[in-house]
């Protein structure tokens, strides 16, 4: 009889479990379990396995469980993976309950200073991610997941979306390319995904194809919330077509760049000065602004170099970017600090916003500060600065009252 296997049992596995299901013709369900939490949660693990097998109508099977302290939704995902590897045509889902903390929404224009990448096939990095206060978390199905585990990660990420409280962080998923992308979308879109990141985007058609698929899933599942898009430019062609990509869908909210792949594509590698990617980065900034999206910079990958990160964020800010990717939670605070507007900048923005509101109240078409006339784009920029200042704690939310 063939065996279906989900999860890993090699050295160093934590918060995860290995489940092997070997169906038989008779004898009922026989579960052999080893768990480091057996004394505390042995009964719970057996209950989950039995419920899962019942859902899939498996009445006779030898099941092997090796558990390193996996949370219930991880055990459920590994069991579903094992069953679906036995029977690839199985479509039923072994879903954990949707938690009320997972139902919050997002807004098109919200701040996206930091977005934390989380490997899609590892629960242990996801569970506390929101506690570190990123603007967004990215459950990654693409580069951080081994090709042989794409199916498992898709199920685990879906369960994580239903169970983990990300404490207000925007809920993003980076899908795979090509045919896998559609299977990823089918699995994750019905579970309150805020943004889908489209990797290695080279044309507007790619964006439209993803968008159409999402709309079809939304219709089928009667999903009311919008699902926004953030295409990632990671090649020379993508950089050249940046505006085509950025303007391809009304659901695009941000455009970002991935420099590891981009520099490889143009036949060089990343340097600390970043001259090799200067053109592509400014192309992304201009395409994004031109299409009314937020331009978001690449990740900073040296986790131990906090000063390098700070400099890199300040540079990104000066180029016109609104956000930065990160791969470690301790990078978040530094990114937010570096994106926070400086005092003089806030002071000037505050006065412009007050003058603007005053002019609105009086029904004046022209905003003036002292003897100077303020152009609409300057007002817009000032409003943005004040929002950023409030969000980063540089300015109190009730700053108008203390005037």
């Amino acid at each position, binding site marked *: 009889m063939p065996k279906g296997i989900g999860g890993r049992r090699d050295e160093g596995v934590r918060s995860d479990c290995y489940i092997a299901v070997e169906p038989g013709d008779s004898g009922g369900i026989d579960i052999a379990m080893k768990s480091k939490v057996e004394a*505390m949660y042995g009964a719970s693990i057996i209950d989950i396995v039995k419920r899962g097998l019942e859902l899939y109508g498996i009445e006779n099977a030898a099941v092997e469980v090796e558990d390193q302290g996996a*949370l219930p939704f991880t055990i459920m995902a590994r069991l579903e993976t094992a069953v679906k590897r036995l029977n690839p045509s199985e479509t039923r889902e072994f879903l954990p309950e949707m938690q009320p903390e997972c139902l919050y929404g997002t807004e098109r224009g919200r701040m996206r200073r930091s977005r934390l990448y989380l490997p899609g096939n590892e629960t242990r990095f996801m569970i506390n991610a929101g506690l570190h206060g990123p603007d967004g978390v990215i459950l990654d199905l693409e580069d951080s997941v081994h090709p042989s585990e794409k199916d498992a990660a898709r199920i685990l990420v879906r369960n994580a979306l239903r169970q983990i409280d990300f404490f207000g962080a925007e809920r993003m998923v980076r899908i795979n390319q090509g045919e896998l992308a559609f299977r990823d979308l089918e699995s994750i879109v019905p579970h309150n995904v805020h943004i889908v990141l489209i990797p290695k985007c080279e044309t507007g058609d790619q964006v439209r194809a993803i968008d159409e698929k999402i709309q079809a899933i939304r219709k089928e599942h009667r999903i009311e919330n919008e699902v926004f898009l953030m295409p990632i430019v990671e090649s020379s062609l993508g950089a050249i077509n940046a505006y085509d990509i950025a303007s391809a869908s009304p659901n695009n909210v941000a455009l970002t760049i991935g420099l590891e792949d981009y520099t490889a594509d143009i036949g060089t590698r990343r340097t600390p000065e970043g001259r090799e990617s200067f053109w592509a980065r400014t192309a992304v900034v201009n395409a994004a602004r031109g299409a009314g999206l937020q331009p978001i910079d690449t990740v900073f990958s040296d986790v131990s170099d906090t000063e390098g990160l700070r400099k890199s964020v300040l540079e990104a800010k000066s180029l016109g970017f609104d956000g930065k990717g990160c791969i470690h939670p301790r990078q978040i605070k530094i990114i937010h600090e570096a994106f926070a507007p400086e005092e003089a900048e806030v002071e000037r923005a505050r006065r412009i916003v007050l003058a603007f509101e005053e002019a609105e109240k009086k029904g004046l078409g022209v905003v003036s500060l002292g003897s100077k006339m303020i152009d609409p784009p300057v007002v817009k920029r000032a409003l943005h600065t004040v929002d950023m200042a409030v969000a980063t704690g540089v300015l109190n939310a009730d700053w108008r009252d203390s005037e």
Partner: protein
Amino acid sequence: MKREYELVENAAGRQVPTVVNGKKQVPYKGVGKHRPEGNKAAPPIASSADYPADGNKVVKDLRAALEAAGLRDGMTISTHHHLRNGDFIANAIFDIAAEMGVKDLMWFPSASFPCQAQNIAHMDNGVIHHIEGSMNGPLGRYCSEGKMRGMGVLRSHGGRYQAVQDGEVHIDIAVIAAPTADPFGNANALTGPSACGLLGFALADSQYADKVIVVTDNLIPFPCIPWQIQGNYVDYVVEVDRIGDPAKIVSGTTQITRSPDRQLIAELTARFVRDAGIMKEGFSFQAGAGGTALAFAIYLKEMMKEAGVKARFVRGGSTQYLVEMLEEGLTEYILDGQTFDLEGVRSMGENPGHVWTSPFTSYNYNGKGFFGTMLDAVVLGATEVDVNFNANVVTHSDGLLLHGIGGWQNCLFSKCTILPIPAFRDRIPVLVDEVTTLVGPGELIDVIITERGIAINPARQDLLDAIKGSDLPIRSIQDLKADVEKIVGGPPARPSLGEKVVAAIKWVDGTVIDSVRQVA
């Protein structure tokens, strides 16, 4: 076999044995409720007429010293753990005892380490009857499984001093591994290939044992300065090639935690100490060498610099991070119980502000005060904390005995005891309804800091008031526990444990606060 003990309920509601290894016990009565009576223990009076006038007490080898000290069946042999996981001497003693055909010894270490797991064989073959002392790793597991003939007794560092001083434990022979010593027996740990900083854990042993043997791999001519152990207590001196493996005694560098969640907990802890007004000019604190405690010290240091605040003293275990604080003038003194890395050893040797202490000065409860009560804040760990703030440091939630108490119980007497702990580890909740083993009473534990929020003991209204207006996530401990249970899938089932008591947990005053059952 008839049990020698009955179980009675103590003031904390825990079942504890009335007799432990033949000695009658006093059940725990509550914090500050027990008053010992009588006089302290004392070793026999010696005459200098029986010791060489030239001061040379060196004998051929450790076996000769043990024979001269009268090693025989049933004796209590003590060792210290300043050499930590690099110690060679505790193993050597029991190998020699086995060669000599001696049986039924009680080993009384200040703590045992995984490098001493070979003594399991000496328990199996009858050389060692049982261990009274903190048991880490494999020795703890052996005891947990009910394989030890006698009952394990776990004491804090201060409790060990107290037990010796009060005569609860009589040491027949103390063997003190010393990184540097002279032929008279004066010894210190500041220099030599096995330098470990200080020898405070061996102080009681030197003062109260019938016979004292100093073993060194760095014998220097008299006088050995400073004498952290005084030669006037010492009977025999032995020179050996190596007392330990330097690489495992102290670490070259101490690692702070890389876990982002632990860093978050450490940062919250430092912010709490600052925002509650504890961090003020002339304050004091103690933080251990665990990854989270080290990260806490680093965050606090930055906040102290920012606020221009200096500490009067900091209590070690010291590491390079405390040494940096001392050298940058952020604290006037380090009062140190053990040095964890080479920087700690160097600083203690060089800097008059880096002072070696002992369990007598820092931790002994049955005395005329101790330093622990004067600390403004301590930062400690725990394996479990319950909704009444009671904490466990010795067993895991499955009932296995895997850790010692160390100075943990003694530190609870600080003005603000803070436990920064993850709310759960993998699927194992740290916040529970009732601790598996009670080691620290909740009335002494003030603040629990987790990645999901901070719980302040409701008995500490002063701290609740002090922290008002701070943006720290203050929550009730019940709320935090409910969060954890939602994530891990409900409260854990209680482990089913055997009837047999395998270890007694002592409180700092010598009473018995809880017992550990055999794992099924």
